[in-house]
């Protein structure tokens, strides 16, 4: 693993720790920012020390050639986001995420947030709002600037992570796989819209990266657990992604006695989410909407056609590059007569799970699809791109692309 990859992962986990500690202190009725700061520094510092101590010779330095490509990626994204950034973010940013942050930034009246049942979604996990609230109190301003900086971090980190992770195998495939999202206006726009979908995509990618680390790196399940915990604490969909991820990797985890490490990584965000869900938040509207009519929806073929058409449209228009990659992998599987890899199957299971969420949704189906389906599929894009790149470089006829200019 690249040293830079580990630093990016740790930064993501630090965001999670800050949000968990800030929310827990609020829940305990402690409004001291100093205590929040001391606890955060201690937790983040401890984590950094723990991971750096465990380098075991597996962390490699970044070559100057790779640094140049990374700089090009970042420059390219910076130039593009300038034109598409909105001050208050998209609708969901100010109507949900930053709204929650404004409540959480007030230690005396933050619980009024849970009265906003109409359009407010107060049951949503708090990774983004709590971090934004923490930093908006630190700087003594509104939530927009911290939300924007967080959005930029997660958006920019994804192509960089994709590049770093794949560059060890093939610099050419790594450049392609990182450059495609870095040039995708839809992805960049979602990223700087201050929504939670790109952060969720980032953490899901981190989980896939973590389990792909060499077996010798004994902290890989701790990293994977932390990434899955972050998924759960970022969005409700994170629970679906984490559950499917766990099911697909449970055999490997048990075989390598990694369950304890995985749980250690995930325990803090899971406990914080439990406190939120059990102690404060009202029931989720989608879960509450499940009833006898759901059975009728499950047997309604028209709903399947509508959801299929919507998914097909998104995958062939907004995320056509992801679909093309999956298609290329499909051809390779047939040509090489191999079955798809575990991670690729996991992605398909996630897509099917999201498909079924819409089938069972109690909301107006057309509206629900129009307002969220593209963002849900985007959550899977970075992990899918990495998996596609790994499948192509592992089973594809592109061995010449394994040539690495950096000589590493």
């Amino acid at each position, binding site marked *: 693993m690249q040293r830079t990859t580990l630093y990016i992962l740790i930064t993501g986990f630090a965001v999670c720790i800050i949000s968990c500690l800030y929310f827990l202190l609020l829940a305990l009725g402690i409004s001291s920012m100093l205590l929040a700061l001391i606890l955060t520094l201690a937790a983040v510092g401890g984590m950094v020390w723990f991971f750096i101590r465990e380098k075991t010779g597996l962390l490699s330095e970044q070559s100057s050639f790779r640094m140049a490509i990374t700089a090009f990626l970042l420059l390219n994204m910076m130039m593009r986001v300038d034109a598409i950034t909105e001050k208050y973010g998209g609708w969901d940013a*100010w*109507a949900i995420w930053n*709204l929650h942050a404004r*409540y959480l930034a*007030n230690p*005396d009246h933050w619980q*009024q947030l849970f*009265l*906003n049942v*109409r359009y407010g979604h107060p049951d949503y996990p708090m990774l983004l709002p709590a971090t934004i609230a923490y930093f908006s109190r630190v700087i003594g301003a509104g939530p927009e600037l911290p939300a924007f900086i967080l959005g930029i971090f997660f958006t920019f980190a994804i192509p960089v992570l994709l590049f770093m992770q794949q560059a060890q195998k093939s610099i050419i495939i790594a450049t392609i796989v990182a450059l495609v999202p870095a040039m995708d206006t839809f992805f960049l726009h979602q990223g700087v819209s201050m929504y939670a979908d790109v952060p969720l995509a980032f953490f899901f990618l981190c989980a896939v990266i973590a389990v792909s680390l060499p077996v010798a790196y004994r902290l890989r399940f701790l990293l994977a657990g932390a990434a899955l915990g972050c998924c759960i604490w970022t969005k409700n969909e994170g629970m679906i992604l984490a559950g499917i991820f766990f099911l697909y990797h449970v055999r490997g985890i048990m075989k390598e006695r990694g369950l304890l490490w995985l749980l250690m990584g995930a325990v803090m965000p899971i406990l914080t989410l439990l406190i939120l869900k059990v102690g404060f938040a009202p029931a989720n509207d989608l879960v509450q909407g499940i009833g006898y009519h759901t059975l009728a929806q499950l047997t309604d073929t028209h709903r399947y056609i509508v959801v299929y058409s919507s998914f097909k449209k998104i995958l062939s228009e907004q995320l056509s590059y992801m679909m093309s990659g999956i298609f290329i992998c499909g051809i390779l599987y047939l040509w090489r007569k191999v079955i798809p890899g575990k991670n690729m199957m996991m992605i398909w299971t996630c897509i099917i799970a999201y498909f079924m969420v819409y089938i069972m949704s109690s909301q107006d189906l057309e509206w629900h699809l129009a307002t969220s389906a593209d963002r849900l599929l985007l959550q899977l894009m970075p992990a899918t791109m990495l998996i596609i790149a790994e499948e192509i470089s592992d089973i594809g006829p592109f061995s010449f692309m394994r040539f690495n200019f950096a000589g590493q």
Partner: protein
Amino acid sequence: MLPFISSGSRLGVVHPGADAGIYMQCRYLLAPVYITGDKEQMPDTVLYVGDFNGRDSAMMTQINNRRVLWQASDSIYHYYLTSIR
């Protein structure tokens, strides 16, 4: 307007039509004040947001029957923060 409203207070919002956007914007800008648009459960203090071009006579009647605490206008709307007399 914020100096007139305590952070822990509850405020009703009445606005023209069924535009959820105005209600959501009020909620965002005035958080952590709890904002409700439910006409059945209006608190004592209500913010009326009226259309600048087409004066809503029914809304104006309601406002006239209340005590106006604060008012302002921009290029689109009139804003009246009111309480019961």
